């Protein structure tokens, strides 16, 4: 039976290698400096994903600005104060939110913001991504903060420190590597999110820095290239995928490496 389970494992690993291998093989041929800085152009005229890279970074930056601190705060609440009934409800809601499909957040933000304003916007896209990040960061933060030994808190309290200083100066610094890990994983996760951006940030063919205008992003650009009928654009989809997947894997691997050293 060991051979059967080993076969399962081998199968799963080979799928990963097949996918990553094919992306590298297809993507590397279309990758160039121009591709990384130019905006999308009509078929036959080249073009690239420069604006999509910048767009992804802006969307992600804004989402992180809101999603990560909130997630950390809620996670800290759950670990430090969340033993009562209210904590149980919050924990249950956060857990269940992780399982809600990202496209539902897109629908929500569309009805909440886009429909009211009447146009697709960077702001709407960032809100959708932030909402996805919050429960993820919440859960990892809670797990990590709970690992901080009780004696450290008791020691600080015994010295007369108020609760907020115990959290701010003792508990959070002790847990900071783990919290950063959770935040980075959340970033890696939403970096690849397409569905919630389709009708919030929508997509754009130009460089853009304004919050109230549609914004390009790498995943949406990949999607548009991929479902087009043009072979030249398919090649661009692979190249953009190579860039995206490299970023995501780099985040994942560096996080793994840093946490292994940390413990």
């Amino acid at each position, binding site marked *: 039976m060991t051979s059967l389970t080993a076969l399962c494992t081998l199968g799963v690993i080979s799928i990963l290698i097949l996918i990553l291998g094919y992306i590298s093989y297809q993507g590397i041929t279309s990758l160039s400096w121009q591709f990384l800085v130019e905006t999308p152009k009509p078929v036959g005229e080249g073009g690239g994903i420069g604006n999509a890279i910048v767009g992804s970074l802006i969307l992600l930056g804004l989402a992180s600005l809101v999603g990560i601190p909130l997630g950390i705060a*809620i996670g800290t609440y759950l670990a430090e104060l969340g033993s009562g009934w209210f904590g149980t409800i919050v924990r249950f809601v956060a857990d269940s939110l992780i399982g809600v499909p990202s496209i539902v957040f897109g629908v929500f933000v569309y009805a909440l913001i886009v429909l009211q304003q009447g146009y697709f916007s960077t702001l709407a896209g960032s809100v959708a991504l932030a909402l996805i990040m919050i429960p993820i960061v919440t859960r990892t933060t809670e797990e990590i903060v709970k690992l901080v030994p009780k004696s450290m808190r008791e020691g600080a309290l015994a010295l007369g420190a108020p609760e907020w200083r115990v959290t701010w100066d003792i508990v959070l610094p002790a847990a900071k590597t783990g919290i950063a890990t959770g935040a980075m994983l959340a970033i890696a996760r939403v970096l690849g999110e397409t569905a919630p951006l*389709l009708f919030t940030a929508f997509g754009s063919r130009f460089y853009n820095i304004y919050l109230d205008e549609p914004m390009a992003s790498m995943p949406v650009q990949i999607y548009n290239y991929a479902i087009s009928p043009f072979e030249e654009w398919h090649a661009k989809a692979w190249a953009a995928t190579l860039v995206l997947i490299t970023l995501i894997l780099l985040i994942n691997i560096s996080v793994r490496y840093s946490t292994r050293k940390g413990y």
Partner: protein
Amino acid sequence: MDNTGRQDGQPLEDASPRNSRRRFSSSDKIYRFLLTACAALIIVVVLAMIAVIGQGSWLSIKEFGFGFLFGQTWDPIKGEFGALPFIYGTVVSSVIAVVIAAPLSIGVAVFLVEQAPRSLARPIAFLVEMLAAIPSVVYGLWAIFVLAPFLRQVVFPPLQASLGWLPFFKGTPTGIGMFTGGLILAIMITPIITAVVRDILEAVPVTQREAALALGATKWETSRIVLANAASGIAGAVILGLGRAIGETMAVTMIIGNRPQISASLFDPAYTIASVIANEFTEATGDLYLSALVEMGLILFVVTFIVTALAKLLILSVGRKTQHTA
């Protein structure tokens, strides 16, 4: 920063476990208030989601009532909207995914926890987790250009030759359709199920294994005993995977064919709830059309919320916290 906290003269001796253990300084009151407010915010968000999505689907709910769930026609021009083909597509593709992914994931988890040497298990577990890091749209791209042609040319012809008399394998296998959609979903949920089952198996006490081995059980029999004891948790892990499959959007949208029909053949194109939202939301003309799509979102929201909560309860019943963040 000069705040030293408690007012003096407050003895610490009434150390009853709850909040009454001491009187809070005003700074601690603010601290507690702020953290509680943040925590309350997540509940506000969920309530707002229910309210906003519910309100958005109101027009459609009023128009079609429960008939929406059973209607078979999806005709934006005539203004007729029924969700049944999409519900069918979602359920069948997710079931295909779970049927393939569940045994595979349990196999991988058993291998990693019970059989593989530690030095090998760690890097392999990391590689399996990497599968969860690949974005949905990338799976879709790979499915269009690699998986679908492979299935069309290599897998489907012999399958149809031998089992073509079954209604599931009739029709023209183009590679774009229900089966390919289910298969790509299976690949996507495998790392999620594997991670949770691994956590659960690792939580089963070593003494159980030792007891079984001491009674003369073989290594495989021991694994089976461990699996049986973790059964409810493993069921939870599988349901969690099912929830993911139900809500997966991009990869399925790119490969399932996007045709709202109910066909027994797994080779035929189908459509899922998430896909129809992704495809038609931006081009929905007319309030009723948009409202019908928002109602699709409402169905997805309610179903995945409940499924995830159920999975979580089952996993917790094994008696240990598990995480599934990726």
